[in-house]
C-alpha cells in the first residue's frame, strides 16, 4: 500500500474520481500484473484525471499511454490478459468505444467460452458514460445495453465514491471481463469512503433508501436523481424505495422482487434510450416474477429514442427529478 493511503485516515471524504484513482492505485499495489492502458492516461493522468499520478509511481510499462486506436487498445489488452496480465483499459468517452466493439463482442466476450475455460480473460474496460456535462456529440452516450446483451461480459455501473473505490478493485480481481461504467457527470461528487472496510460483493444490487409506496430502480448517475426524487416525494407524504442496481449484467433482481412484492409498483430510471434498454428487460422480469403483486405496470423513465441531442437541450432528454416523480404519480394512479 502506498504511503499516501497508509497515512490517510481510514475514512476519507472522496470524490468519485478520486475514489477511482485510489482504487486503481491499490489494485496496482496488490497485484503486479495489473496494467493500465489508454489514451492520455499516463503523463496527463487521463482527460478526467482518473489515473493521475499513477504513471509517475508505477512506470510506463504499467500505465501505458497507447496509440490513439480503441480497437488496438482492447485487442492488445486481450493478448496481455492471455499472457497472464490483468489489463485495465480506459476508453476516453462512451462514444469512442464503438471502434473497439468488434474486439469486445467477438473476442473479449467469447474467449472463455470458446476455449472451454482454458483462456480466461480477466480484464476491465472502464468507460466514463452518460450525459449532462454540456459536451459535443459522442461524449454523452449510454451504451450499456449493447454490452449487457452480449453473453460473456459483465457490466457494472457505479453511482457513489464507496462503490467506485471498492468496485474498481473488485472488477480488476474478477476472473471475467468487466465493462466498468463510470458516471462522468458525477466524478466530482463527494462522499465518505472507509478504505479499511470490508466491501460487499460486486455483482449485486442494493437498497439505498427504504420506502413503501413505489420501488424506484436506477444505476450510475441516475441513482442520485432517484434519491432526490425520493426526498422530494417524502415531503408530499410518498415513500419511495430506491434500489441501486449496481450491476446490469448479471442483473441482481432478488432485492427488486422482494421490494416490488411489498410496494406493488416499480419505476426504472436510466439515461439510455428506453426502447430495448435495460429497463425493458427489468420490466419483463419483474412482471414475470411479481405479476400477482403488481398494482401498476412497470414504468420506464429514460432517454428518448433519438440520437443524443446537442447539449443546450440535453436536459430535456435526461431523466430528472420531475420526470421520475411524474412516473411515480402515474404508477400511483393505477
Amino acid at each position, binding site marked *: 500500500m502506498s504511503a499516501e493511503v497508509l497515512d490517510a485516515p481510514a475514512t476519507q471524504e472522496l470524490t468519485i474520481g478520486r475514489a477511482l484513482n485510489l482504487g486503481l492505485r491499490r489494485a496496482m499495489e496488490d497485484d503486479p500484473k495489473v496494467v493500465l492502458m489508454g489514451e492520455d492516461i499516463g503523463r496527463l493522468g487521463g482527460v478526467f484525471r482518473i489515473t493521475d499520478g499513477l504513471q509517475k509511481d508505477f512506470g510506463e510499462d504499467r500505465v501505458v499511454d497507447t496509440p490513439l486506436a480503441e480497437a488496438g487498445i*482492447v*485487442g492488445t489488452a486481450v*493478448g496481455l490478459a492471455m*499472457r497472464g*496480465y490483468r489489463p485495465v483499459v480506459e476508453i476516453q468517452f462512451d462514444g469512442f468505444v464503438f471502434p473497439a466493439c468488434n474486439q469486445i463482442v467477438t473476442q473479449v466476450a467469447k474467449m472463455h467460452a470458446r476455449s472451454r475455460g482454458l*483462456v480466461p480473460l*480477466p480484464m476491465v474496460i472502464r468507460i466514463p458514460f452518460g450525459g449532462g456535462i454540456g459536451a459535443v456529440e459522442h461524449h454523452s452516450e449510454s451504451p450499456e445495453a449493447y454490452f449487457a446483451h452480449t453473453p460473456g461480459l459483465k457490466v457494472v455501473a457505479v453511482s457513489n465514491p464507496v462503490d467506485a473505490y471498492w468496485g474498481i478493485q473488485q472488477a480488476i480481481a*474478477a476472473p471475467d471481463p468487466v465493462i466498468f461504467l463510470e458516471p462522468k457527470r458525477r466524478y466530482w461528487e463527494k462522499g465518505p469512503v472507509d478504505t479499511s472496510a470490508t466491501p460487499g460483493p460486486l455483482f449485486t444490487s442494493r437498497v439505498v433508501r427504504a420506502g413503501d409506496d413505489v420501488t424506484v430502480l436506477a444505476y450510475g448517475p441516475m441513482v442520485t436523481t432517484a434519491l432526490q426524487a425520493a426526498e422530494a416525494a417524502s415531503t408530499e407524504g410518498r415513500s419511495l424505495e430506491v434500489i441501486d442496481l449496481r450491476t446490469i*449484467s448479471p442483473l441482481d433482481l432478488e432485492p427488486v422482487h422482494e421490494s416490488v412484492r411489498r410496494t406493488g409498483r416499480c419505476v426504472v430510471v436510466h439515461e439510455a434510450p428506453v426502447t430495448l434498454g435495460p429497463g425493458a428487460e427489468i420490466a419483463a422480469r419483474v412482471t414475470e416474477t411479481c405479476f400477482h403483486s403488481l398494482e401498476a405496470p412497470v414504468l420506464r423513465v429514460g432517454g428518448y429514442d433519438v440520437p443524443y441531442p446537442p447539449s443546450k437541450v440535453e436536459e430535456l432528454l435526461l431523466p430528472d427529478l420531475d420526470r421520475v416523480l411524474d412516473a411515480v404519480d402515474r404508477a400511483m394512479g393505477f
Partner: protein
Amino acid sequence: MTAVRHETDDADIGDLHEVVDPVPGAGAPHLPRQMDLVQLLTPEGERLEHPDYPLDVSDEELRGCYRDMALVRRWDGEATALQRQGELGIWASLLGQEAAQLGAGRALRDGDTAFPTYREHGVAWARGVDPLHVMSLFRGVDNGGWDPVALGFNLYTVVIGAQTLHATGYAMGVQRDGAESAVLAFLGDGATSQGEVNEAMVFAASFSAPVVFFCQNNQYAISVPLERQSRVPLYRRAAGFGFPGVRVDGNDVLAVLAVTRAALQAAREGQGPTFIEAFTYRMGAHTTSDDPTRYRLAAEVEEWKLRDPIARLMAYLSRSGLADAAFFAGVEAEADALAARIRSGTIGMPDPRPTAMFDAVYAEQTPPLAAQRAEFEAYQASFEGGERS
C-alpha cells in the same frame, strides 16, 4: 524496454503494379522479380544461396519438412472428402500453402506462441495439435479442441485480422516478462486491409514488441484479387510502420524457414517486429462452400501447379541423395494411416452434451445464467427418455 530503430526499406517503390501485371489473357499474378523474393529452392528443386538468409538445416530436418508437408496435404485432402460426404460442415483447404505454413511453423521454438487464422492446419501440425482437434471445429463439435496455452498455438480466429492484435498484446506481455521468446501472428492478404491489422502494426512498432507478422499472400480474399487490397506489394507496407518487410517465396519451405527463423530471432533479441509476405497461391477453393471457377481462370491455377511446394522439395531430396524411394514410400504409408485415423476419428466424434454451451460462458457462473441452464435442463428432461434429440 528500449525501442530499437530499424533501417526501413527506402528502396524505390516506383514499380507499384509489379504484382498485378496479368499473364496475358489470364489475369494470373506473376512471381515477383527475383530481387524482391527470397528463394532458396527453385520450383525445379535447385538450391540457391541468399546472402541474408543462410540456411542452417540438417538432412533430418529437410526430410522432416517433406514429411510434414506430405502428411498435412493428405490430411487436407481427407478433410475435403469428408466435407463432401457430409461429415464436416465446412473445410478451409490449405492446398498449395504447405510450405508457407510448415516453414513458418517449424521456425517456432518452445516458448514461442502462434496466433493463427482459420487455415493454419500446417502450423497446427507443426505445433503438435492433434488433427482431430481441428476437425472437431469444422464438424461443429466445438471451436477447436486443443489446449492453446499448453501448445503455444492459439485457437483459430475467424474474424479477419482480430488475432494480430492479440499477438501484439501477447508480445507486449512477453516483453514485460523479460522472456526470450517471440510471437508469430498469421494473416492473409485480405486481412491487410483491416483496420485492426494496421493498428496491430502501429502498436507493435511503437512498443517494439517481439512479434512477427506472417502474411500468406495467396492472391485472393475469397474472390477478390490482391490488387483490390493494395497498390503496393504487401511487404513494402512494413516500411510505413517503421519495421522491416521481407517477401519470401511462400512455396519454398527452406526460404520460409530461414526468413521466419531470422525474424523470430530478431524479435527475441529485442529488435522488434518484422512483416513477412509469403508469396503463395491458394490452389483450392476459399472453403468447400466456394466456387473459384467464377473468379479465376484455370490457366492461372495450372501455372501455379508448376511451383508446387512439395514436388520441388521432393526433387531436391531425390537429386541430392538425401532421400530414397523407401523414404518416400514410408511417408506415403504414414499418410495413409493418418488419413484413416482422421476419417474414423471424425466420423466417430460424439456431439457435445446439450448443456455444454452453458459450461464456460463465465469463469464465475452468474445466477441468471444458472437459472436459465436449470430451465433448459428441466425442459430437456420433460421429453420422454429424458432428452430431446
